[in-house]
C-alpha cells in the first residue's frame, strides 16, 4: 500500500459529531422542553430530511413520513405534491446519506451500537427477504392504509406513526409525557405497545448495526430507491479495486460495496471508503461525463 495515497477522510470520521449537531440544531426549541409543548411557528411547514417526529418538544420542522401519511389520509386533496417533491429532491441530491448523517433515530441507533458486546450480529436468517420488509411497511402502512382505511369523518390515520415509529415514541412521546401531566393521565395500551417496539429496536441496535434502518424504515426505503441515481454516489475505481472484500467486512450492513457501491441498503456512512486499503472507493457528487472522468482518472494515475 502506498502510504502517501492513504487519505484521512475527516467527513466520515466526524460522522457522529455531525449527527449529534444536526439532531441538536433541528430539535433545539428550548421552550418546548421547558413547558412540555411543541413549536408552532411557520418553519414547521418545512420537512426535515430525516425521521424526526414533529411532536418532539424541540422540533423546528415537520417529519416527512408523518406528513406523507397525513396527506394520504385525507389532509391534502389529490396527490401530495409538496411532500413527495421534498422526498424526491432530497433523495435525488443525496440518497441515503440522510440516514447516515442527518437522521436523529439513526444516530440513536449508532449510539446503542457502541454498547458492548463487541461481537455483533451481522445478518439474520432470511436477511435478503427481511430487508425488503421496509418496502412493505412503506406501501402498506404509509400509503395503502392511510389512503383507504378511513374513519367516519373521511380522514385516515398515519398507520406507521401509530403502530411502529420508534422515533416518535423516543423523541416525541417520552419527553412530552415526562413534561406534560395531562398527557401522562391518558396513557394506555397503545403507548405500552409502542414502548415495546422501541425497546426491541434499541436492544436490537446493541446487537446489530441499524436494525430499524435495514428492516423497517419506510423513509430509508424511499431514499434507498434513489441511491443508484442520486447526485452523491459511491464510486469504485476499477483500476484500483482488487475485490479484497475489506469494504464488506467493515460495512455494518454487510454490503459488498466493491460489487454494489450504490445498494439501496447503503446508508453512506463512509466506513468502506475509510478502510479500503487501495483507496479504490470515493464519494462523488459530480455530473461529469465519462470522458472527463477518464481524463481525471488518468491525471490521478
Amino acid at each position: 500500500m502506498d502510504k502517501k495515497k492513504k487519505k484521512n477522510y475527516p467527513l466520515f470520521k466526524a460522522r457522529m459529531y455531525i449527527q449529534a449537531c444536526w439532531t441538536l440544531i433541528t430539535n433545539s426549541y428550548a421552550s418546548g422542553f421547558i413547558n412540555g409543548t411543541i413549536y408552532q411557528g411557520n418553519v414547521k411547514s418545512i420537512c426535515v430530511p430525516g425521521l424526526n417526529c414533529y411532536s418532539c418538544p424541540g422540533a423546528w420542522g415537520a417529519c416527512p413520513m408523518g406528513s406523507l401519511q397525513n396527506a394520504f389520509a385525507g389532509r391534502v386533496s389529490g396527490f401530495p405534491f409538496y411532500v413527495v417533491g421534498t422526498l424526491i429532491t432530497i433523495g435525488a441530491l443525496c440518497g441515503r446519506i440522510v440516514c447516515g448523517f442527518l437522521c436523529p433515530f439513526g444516530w440513536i441507533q449508532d449510539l446503542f451500537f457502541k454498547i458492548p458486546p463487541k461481537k455483533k450480529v451481522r445478518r439474520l436468517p432470511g436477511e435478503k427477504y427481511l430487508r425488503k420488509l421496509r418496502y412493505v411497511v412503506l406501501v402498506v402502512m404509509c400509503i395503502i392504509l392511510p389512503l383507504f382505511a378511513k374513519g367516519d369523518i373521511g380522514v385516515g390515520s398515519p398507520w406507521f406513526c401509530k403502530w411502529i415509529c420508534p422515533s416518535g415514541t423516543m423523541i416525541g412521546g417520552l419527553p412530552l409525557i415526562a413534561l406534560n401531566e395531562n398527557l401522562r393521565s391518558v396513557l394506555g395500551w397503545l403507548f405500552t405497545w409502542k414502548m415495546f417496539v422501541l425497546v426491541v429496536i434499541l436492544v436490537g441496535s446493541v446487537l446489530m448495526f441499524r436494525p430499524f434502518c435495514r428492516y423497517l424504515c419506510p423513509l430509508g426505503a424511499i431514499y434507498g430507491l434513489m441511491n443508484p441515481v442520486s447526485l452523491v454516489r459511491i464510486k469504485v475505481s476499477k483500476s484500483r479495486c482488487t475485490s479484497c472484500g475489506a469494504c464488506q467486512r467493515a460495512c455494518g450492513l454487510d454490503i459488498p460495496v466493491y460489487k454494489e457501491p450504490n445498494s439501496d441498503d447503503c446508508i453512506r456512512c463512509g466506513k468502506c471508503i475509510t478502510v479500503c486499503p487501495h483507496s479504490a472507493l470515493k464519494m462523488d457528487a459530480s455530473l461529469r461525463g465519462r470522458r472527463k472522468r477518464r481524463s481525471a482518472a488518468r491525471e490521478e494515475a
Partner: protein
Amino acid sequence: MRKRSIYTLVLLAVGLAFIVIGAVKGEANAVLQKAIMICMECIGLG
C-alpha cells in the same frame, strides 16, 4: 453526460417542480396545520 446523470437531473427537476406545485396548492399549510398539533398517534396515545 451519462444516462445516470440525466436521471439525477430529471428527478431533481421533478422534485422541485412538485414542491412548487404543492406550495401553490397550499399543501405546505396542510403540513404546517398537522405539524403544529401534538400528534397523538406518533407519541402513542391514540
